[in-house]
């Protein structure tokens, strides 16, 4: 707990994803959860006297990111092997190698939850077991100072007598057993599958465009990009802060980032096309045609950017589809466990 600001001390760990930053602070009698984006900060307080339990569950985060960074490194190595100017690919592989090594060194991943009488809050800043264990040990001392130490015999005597059906005292985690049977999903299953389909099709259309040197797959891909952007936003907005979701938010965020990056790239090509052919400035259709022609230009950078983003779209589509299949299975297990 190094950083101290006024009465708060920062708990180690932070999460930063696409302009949203989350941090946890230790106060005199409560924990302060701060989520800040580009425009505002939001606060949640967890008073030590209200915390009933902390739960840390190991997950496969380190493995998943190791696979993703490893694939990127291999793609870079492959590019360096086949390319005549491998310098770019060496830098590309080097950057992703750094990410891969730092992910492995960070240690196993985990999810940490704070349980109170009314809810189960996920603390996303504690994402690695090493930091989480230190933070939870410190938190335990603070909570025991506020509530008193729980004797092991008292715990063993009283634990089985806590009634799950008593709503006023039911742990939030146990109440989720009942909610698992609730079919009120945040969005219909068809939406994430549509997103998977769009990712795969956009990737394939880009590869077709490059292979057959035709502008029509590229034009279709641009239109589908708009659809992907809208779909990813809908899934993120409707699934925001909901527990009944088919897909973890980070898949939708990755799809949104990919769509934005491809959109920005297309925007840059659009300007380049107008600069090269000023007569198309007043004619959008001609400018778009020039944009698509420019995307097919046989140049190292266009090939790398184009092929890279097409491969990324296909890869993301496959991984998202796999996650959707696994999550569907997990939802079934939850419903079976509740009945």
């Amino acid at each position: 707990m190094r950083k101290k600001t006024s009465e708060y001390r920062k708990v180690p760990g932070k999460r930063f994803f696409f302009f949203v930053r989350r941090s946890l602070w230790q106060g005199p009698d409560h924990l302060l959860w701060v989520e800040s984006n580009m425009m505002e900060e939001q606060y949640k307080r967890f008073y030590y006297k209200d915390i009933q339990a902390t739960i840390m569950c190991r997950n496969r985060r380190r493995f998943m990111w190791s696979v993703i960074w490893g694939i990127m490194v291999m793609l870079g190595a492959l590019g360096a092997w086949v390319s005549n100017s491998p310098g770019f690919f060496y830098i590309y592989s080097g950057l992703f190698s750094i990410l891969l090594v730092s992910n492995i060194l960070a240690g196993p991943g985990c999810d940490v939850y704070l349980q109170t009488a009314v809810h189960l809050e996920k603390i996303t800043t504690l994402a690695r077991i090493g930091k989480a264990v230190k933070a939870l040990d410190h938190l335990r001392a603070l909570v025991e100072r506020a509530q008193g130490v729980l004797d092991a015999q008292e715990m063993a005597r009283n634990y089985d007598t806590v009634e799950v059906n008593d709503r006023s005292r039911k742990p939030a985690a146990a109440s989720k057993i009942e909610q698992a049977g609730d079919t009120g999903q945040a969005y219909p299953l068809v939406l994430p599958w549509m997103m998977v389909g769009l990712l795969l099709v956009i990737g394939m259309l880009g590869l077709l465009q490059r292979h057959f040197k035709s502008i029509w797959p590229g034009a279709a891909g641009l239109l589908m990009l708009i659809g992907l952007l809208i779909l990813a936003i809908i899934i993120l907005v409707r699934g925001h802060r909901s527990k009944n979701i088919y897909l973890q938010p980070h898949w939708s965020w990755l799809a949104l980032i990919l769509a934005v990056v491809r959109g920005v790239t297309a925007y840059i090509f659009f300007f380049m096309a107008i600069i090269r052919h000023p007569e198309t400035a007043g004619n959008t259709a001609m400018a778009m045609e020039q944009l698509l022609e420019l995307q097919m230009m046989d140049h190292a950078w266009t090939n790398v950017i184009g092929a890279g983003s097409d491969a990324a779209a296909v890869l993301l589509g496959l991984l998202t589809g796999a996650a959707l299949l696994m999550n569907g299975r997990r939802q079934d297990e939850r419903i079976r466990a509740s009945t």
Partner: protein
Amino acid sequence: MIACPNCRAIQPVEHLNTGRLSPCPVCRAPLRVDLFRGFFRRFDQTELGEDVQAQAQARCFNHPGKKAVVPCIACGRLLCALCRVELEDQNYCMSCLQAGRDKRKLKNLQQQRTLFDSIALNLAFWPMLAVFPTLLTAPAALYFAVRHWRAPAGIFPRTHLKNIFAVLLAAGQIIGWIVAAVFFLSRQ
């Protein structure tokens, strides 16, 4: 009962407060559970407030049949055990608590703060990548930075660095547009 976050299986008492990861009996996910006394805290009947026993006893402002135990620190109204809300070792009534939250006088009730300096800096910086939107966003950034210079930044103290950068960037963009306009007009 404590349930596994993955499969919702109830964890046995042997897996609690061990300080190490133990596998869930159903899904085998490694879990560490720290349980505290608050889990077993029972509802105390006296928290509902005691009835007035004698005529001379002070009565709650909101519940005349209940005995007042504390005054509100803000308005002085007498409160029973049910009405009082303890915050930062002080007792408040609900009206003063709500007023304190709405007027931002009670720091511990603040749930969100608008970061005007971040808005100004983002308005000044990001549109630069696309160039043309800065015609609109630069004056907007300047407005946010100057108008809300003294606005409270958040629970944590902040410097004016973001505001200063926003002003410099926005001013630079506005000057750039003026120079570009003068240049094109003079060419014609």
